[in-house]
């Protein structure tokens, strides 16, 4: 086998072309890794919103809270269904909430987008124990006070602590607290009193969804049978993690497909760059290849050597791309969640699997880009090369 140091040193000798080719591959690896990290970040944000022992009940035929409506009397039936956990005072652990969207202006004034407003009952903090008030105080039930999620507070006009904004025209509300919710999608919401919110949006007497805490995740089937078995109710029950997974499916798929498509298009350019670099390397080292062939190295040895060199360029580029993508982990990103048509804030989330996929993609580009130049190198005749 031709020593690997031969390839490494040759790359070092022609630094400029090595870096140029590696940069092309770095860009592709960066785009792919960033897209996958974005997709992962959204999925994780949505997944952390759900807990295994919680079920969400929606109107049958609606797969999103925004379009679902459940009448108040039905909420009582859901709360008393079998499997619902009881608080220490014997009341069921369940919350009926109204979800609406408000069209709000971003704080930089560059655009407007939907923000989810959740009408919550007074005891919501007992139900969602991972929600913590970071600043200010809780909103007083029955008043025009709201609390804003950590992820969107400050990103929209009127959502900073102490600011006010119009929930609907002539319905101003004041932000009295900022909360965090373990990085979940709730941090991209504004929470206000359920009665105030549904009155403002003309949804009196109905909620969007009911969430119940079960005695254990294993009680879900019994609960589901009770809720869905009564055809008069027309409801559907879904475990909360599954609900959020479905919510993020469309958007994560969109991001992944877009990212992969862009990466594939870019990769064509990067591969052409790697191919040109390797063809130049072969042309410049024709005599060396001839000598190696004369000494007894086979065509396969030559092909592997040049493929390794191309792979090395790709891995250098891949490493550059992965490092750049990792730096994106520090950036928070907001985009429209297609299932709720609202802004959701999440982070680029790297995982070893994503980094391996991106690096592997770079490696494949290197091997494909170097394939034909390597074949050309192997076809060099020792006699002809040394006659040049």
């Amino acid at each position, binding site marked *: 086998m031709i020593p690997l140091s*031969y390839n490494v040193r040759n790359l070092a000798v022609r630094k400029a072309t090595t870096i140029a080719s590696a940069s092309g591959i770095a860009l592709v690896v960066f785009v792919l890794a960033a897209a996958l990290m974005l997709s992962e970040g959204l999925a994780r944000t949505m997944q952390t919103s759900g807990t295994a022992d919680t079920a969400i009940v929606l109107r049958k035929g609606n797969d999103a809270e925004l379009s679902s409506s459940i009448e108040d009397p039905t909420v009582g039936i859901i709360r008393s269904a079998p499997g619902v956990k009881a608080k220490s005072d014997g009341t069921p652990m369940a919350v009926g909430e109204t979800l609406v969207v408000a069209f709000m202006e971003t704080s930089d004034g560059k655009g407007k987008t939907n923000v989810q407003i959740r009408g919550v009952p007074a005891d919501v903090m007992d139900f969602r124990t991972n929600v913590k008030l970071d600043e200010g105080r809780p909103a007083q039930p029955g008043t025009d006070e709201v609390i804003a999620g950590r992820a969107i507070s400050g990103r929209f006009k009127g959502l900073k602590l102490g600011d006010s904004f119009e929930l609907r025209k002539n319905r101003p509300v004041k932000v009295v607290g900022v909360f965090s919710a373990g990085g979940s999608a709730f941090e991209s919401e504004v929470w206000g009193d359920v009665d105030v919110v549904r009155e403002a949006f003309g949804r009196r007497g109905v909620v969007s969804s009911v969430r119940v805490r079960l005695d254990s995740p294993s009680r879900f089937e019994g609960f589901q049978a009770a809720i869905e078995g009564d055809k008069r109710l027309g409801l559907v029950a879904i475990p909360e993690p599954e609900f959020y997974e479905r919510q993020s499916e469309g958007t994560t798929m969109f991001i992944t497909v877009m990212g992969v498509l862009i990466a594939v298009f870019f990769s064509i350019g990067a591969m052409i760059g790697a191919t040109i670099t390797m063809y130049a390397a072969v042309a410049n080292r024709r005599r060396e290849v001839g000598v*190696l*062939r004369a000494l007894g190295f086979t*065509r396969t040895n030559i092909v592997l050597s040049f493929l390794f060199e191309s792979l090395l360029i790709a891995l250098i580029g891949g490493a550059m791309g992965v490092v750049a993508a990792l730096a994106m982990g520090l950036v928070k990103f907001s985009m429209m969640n297609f299932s709720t048509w609202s802004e959701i804030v999440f982070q680029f989330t790297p995982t070893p699997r994503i980094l391996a996929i991106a690096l592997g993609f770079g490696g494949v580009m290197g091997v494909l880009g170097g394939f034909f130049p390597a074949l050309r190198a192997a076809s060099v005749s020792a006699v002809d090369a040394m006659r040049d």
Partner: protein
Amino acid sequence: MSETEHIIKLKGINKTFTRGKERLEVLSDLDLNIPKGAFEALMGPSGSGKTTLLNLIAGLDRPTKGSLEVAGQDISKLSDGQLSKWRSSHIGFIFQHFNLIPVLTAQENVELPLLLTKLPAAERKTRAATALRVVGLEDRMDHRPNQLSGGQEQRVGVARAIVHDPTIIVADEPTGELDRQSADEILGLLEKLNKEFDKTILMVTHDPAAAERATLIRKLDKGQLA
């Protein structure tokens, strides 16, 4: 001298090159026997077929016609891969332009033929160092070709040609790029390899002074031995 003692046996060798529609016969019906342990010089005018003959004997090229037995093997029948393996075992090359790999040190260049053997890395390094000692370059082992003089580069080339203990050393104008003193040193090394290590050497040269160092001078003209 009996037939079995010949390490190179060529019979009825013909080599024709085709350039476009033109056929160029470089070697025609050539017979040649070289005994084991010989140091022979091959001379002749440019285009007489010296290098072509050397390439055939070294297994770098194939004859158009004829039988070619070198080191006990009919090499005209070997596949490309088999021929590569055969070269790595039996042939040591010394080139006019040295042909060292620029990014490798002297020791790494000398070690190259040993990478095709199953020797462990430590043994390869020891043998490369020994070969460099034989050519008097033990203090230049870590130098790259561009840090060596022409004469030193060719001595590294000689070390590379002998490191794997080949059956035959082929040298194509080994002194063509060197000054007289460096050329004498290289020729002295070849004599030493022939006399002390019993290596069979076939050298193509234009230089009569170089040819005189060989034990036999053969002259080639228009593709035939004179």
